[in-house]
């Protein structure tokens, strides 16, 4: 996406990261779907449910928690990615909302600042890593809470 467009962009970074997410999400989703017992599908078929309704209303629901967890895990995994961003979103020393231009990202900033010669850059790199860690922790906790809340209703 960088070469045909001719410049680095936030979109290219996003696309690269989402491609990295695919195998993780695919794998967990497949596992979770195969964990839904056949008897459950048969029970739905026995009521006269058409194929697509069995899949959407019964199988996906049964596996929803697992699929959701898989997505969260892969987001957490991708949030720690640096290398693909170097080639796609590149970096930006300024805060930017422009998805068509180079985008700053925490991990690349950590990389650059930690490599830098100044002590306050090092301190900022540490701070950025802390932010990433907290962000992932936050995602995981919200995921857990959402699942719990869904099942309490």
């Amino acid at each position, binding site marked *: 996406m960088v070469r045909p467009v001719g410049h680095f962009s936030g979109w290219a970074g996003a696309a690269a990261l989402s491609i990295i997410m695919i195998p993780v999400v695919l794998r967990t989703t497949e596992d979770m779907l195969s964990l839904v*017992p056949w*008897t*459950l599908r*048969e*029970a*739905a*078929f*026995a*009521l*006269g*449910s*058409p194929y697509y*309704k069995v899949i959407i*209303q*019964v199988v996906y*629901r*049964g596996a*929803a928690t697992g699929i959701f967890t898989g997505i969260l895990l892969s987001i957490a995994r991708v949030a720690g990615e640096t290398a693909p961003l170097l080639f796609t979103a590149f970096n930006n020393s300024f805060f930017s909302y422009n998805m068509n231009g180079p985008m700053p990202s925490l991990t690349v900033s950590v990389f650059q600042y930690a490599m830098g010669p100044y002590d306050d850059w090092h301190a900022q790199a540490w701070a950025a890593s802390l932010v990433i860690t907290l962000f992932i922790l936050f995602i995981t906790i919200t995921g857990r809470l959402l699942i719990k809340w869904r*099942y309490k*209703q």
Partner: protein
Amino acid sequence: MTNKVELEIKGLNFYYSGDIHALKNINLTIHNKSVTALIGPSGCGKTTLLRCFNRMHDLYPKHRYEGEILFRDNNLLANGNDLIKLRSRIGMVFQRPTPFPMSIFDNVAYGLRLKGIKKKSDLAERVEKALKHAALWDEVKNKLTASAYDLSGGQQQRLVIAVPLPSNRKSFFLMSPPLLSIRYRRRK
């Protein structure tokens, strides 16, 4: 006094995939409004026979039927049958409780929604009726929105009996030996 013939099996043979001959030349007549029990040792084909009635074997392409099952004079095993319609008329309860991953209410409403009943008051009324028929209403009336998995094994089994009840009240209703896990109570 004998009731009208509801279901008639004529020369039924059934083969599992790989030509395993499971049912050999079954002939049986089942009367309307009667209780019929199939008894036999484990693995003798009771469930296999029951599953023929609502064509559950069709989910596995290599299973094969021969013969006829006449349900109100229609051959259930005819090729052009609409299986979805057929299964919504002939209910089935499985050996192990298989509630859907939804609330207790939604479990019972599932069959109704498949039939296109969407009005809330209608649903609520029919769900209540079905749960009463399955002798479960008093235990769950205060927690209809709880997950069906919160129920005990016996309660779950009564719940899955209630699921086909409201949509099939006038048609044939059959069970695979599920009552084992229920403390059986005679209805008044």
